[in-house]
């Protein structure tokens, strides 16, 4: 049996989907053909690549997302209800309940159903221009949803949920202005040092935005925790923003400053000059 014939059997052989007879044909061929034997060997060796485990915090992050999503949905439903109420015209409402309107609704719902089916159908890989517009709209909606989830998480009572919110918000390539302002607020005012540090870490990736750099410099004046103060100083030194040097000098003269923090500020000033 030649390689071409074996090529037809090999994929099924690899997943154990051949008869005993076919398996022995493949094995006999592999004794004579080095290339096919090596294909099989490499497939088997893939078992050596060990499985990986998600980090233990993954479940908590999921729960925070779920909680935030539910909060957003409830808020949306409430505001939709408030917006709808004053507009109800009772005669129109009565008409909507008539049999004629019921059929109109059925047709409309069917059309919506067909549209949704076409839009999200599985296995449709070729996108027409209108589909690609829909996909773009869907992606932008998802970005908004991610941002809403992040914003909602940043306002949660529990520090661990706020921490999840920071990690949801900081990884977008482009920081949404609302998320940016929420992160800067978190950096200045959050009661937990861990959350403030995480916010700084997230903001640190967006040094190209002047408001972020300005916000980090401003946060330094308000910080009480030496741990966060040192992290802020390190961030400013890393950005090599010469304008930060003067602010650091002023900060270094703050009375009752922790000596380690003062030393770090002096080190950063020397780096920036």
């Amino acid at each position, binding site marked *: 049996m030649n390689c071409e014939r074996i*090529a*037809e059997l*090999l*994929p*099924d052989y*690899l*997943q154990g989907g051949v008869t005993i007879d076919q398996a022995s044909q493949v094995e006999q061929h592999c004794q004579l053909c080095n*290339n096919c034997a*090596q*294909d099989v060997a*490499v*497939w088997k*060796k*893939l078992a*050596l*690549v*060990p*499985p*990986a*485990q*998600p*980090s233990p915090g*993954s*479940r908590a*992050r*999921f*729960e925070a*997302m*779920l909680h935030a*999503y*539910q909060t957003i949905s409830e808020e949306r439903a409430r505001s939709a209800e408030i917006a709808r109420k004053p507009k109800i015209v009772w005669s129109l409402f009565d008409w909507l309940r008539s049999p004629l309107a019921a059929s109109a609704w059925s047709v409309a719902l069917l059309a919506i159903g067909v549209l*949704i*089916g076409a*839009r*999200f159908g*599985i*296995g*449709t*890989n070729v996108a027409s221009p209108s589909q690609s517009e829909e996909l773009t709209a869907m*992606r932008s*909606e*998802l970005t908004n*949803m*991610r941002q809403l*989830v992040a914003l909602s998480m940043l306002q949660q009572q529990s520090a661990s949920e706020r921490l999840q919110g920071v990690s*949801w918000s900081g*990884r*977008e*390539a482009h920081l949404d202005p609302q998320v940016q302002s929420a992160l800067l607020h978190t950096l200045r005012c959050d009661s937990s040092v861990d959350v403030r540090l995480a916010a700084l870490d997230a903001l640190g*990736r967006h040094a190209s935005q002047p408001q972020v750099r300005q916000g980090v410099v401003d946060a330094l004046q308000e910080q009480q925790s030496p741990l966060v103060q040192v992290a802020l100083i390190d961030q400013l030194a890393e950005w090599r923003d010469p304008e930060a040097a003067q602010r650091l000098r002023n900060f270094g003269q703050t009375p009752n400053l922790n000596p380690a923090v003062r030393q770090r500020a002096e080190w950063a000033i020397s780096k920036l000059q």
Partner: protein
Amino acid sequence: MNSVPDEDVMLQVRNGEVDMLGVLFDRYQTPLYNFYAKMTQDRVISEDLVQEVFLRILRYRQTYRPGTTFRTWMYQIARNTRIDQVRRTRPETPLVSEPVAPTSLSDSAQHKQEAATLQRALMHLPEDKRELLVLSRFQELKYDEIARLLGCEVGAVKVRIHRALRQLRQVFLQLESGVPATDSHGALDHSLPPGRRLQ
């Protein structure tokens, strides 16, 4: 709860019992994480993508059609999420990332080395070939399931898997013999900062 089929749980989620999504998360977070870890070699990105998949399931739960295999539907979402992530990734804004850490180590040093070489060889394949091998070998998806996922014939899947395996073998043997692998990278590989790959 373990015995309830995925599809029934998903229907409950679709009907508004969104807390039930936790059951599906517990069942699939590790397989999905492994899918992304093998595709990206990046722990942070893989975890983000898993979360994103479940956010999308939640957001688009109404589009889940009864009778559809949940796993296939989920992997469809997972593939789209990955495609979007590649589009969003900008080489000039690298994230601080950590490579994927295996949870168990092979017995012998040789096995460890071979596993590392195989990982590198996988990353040398174009995205579509790597994906086929990951789905069929690591995620243990049957060929007909992959065919439904990709929207093609089962026969075409088998041919493409065989080609992908052949290319993997060539790259693996080149890397093993110390010859730098020929440039068979997918466009995606160029978009990933080198620090994110498993060395």
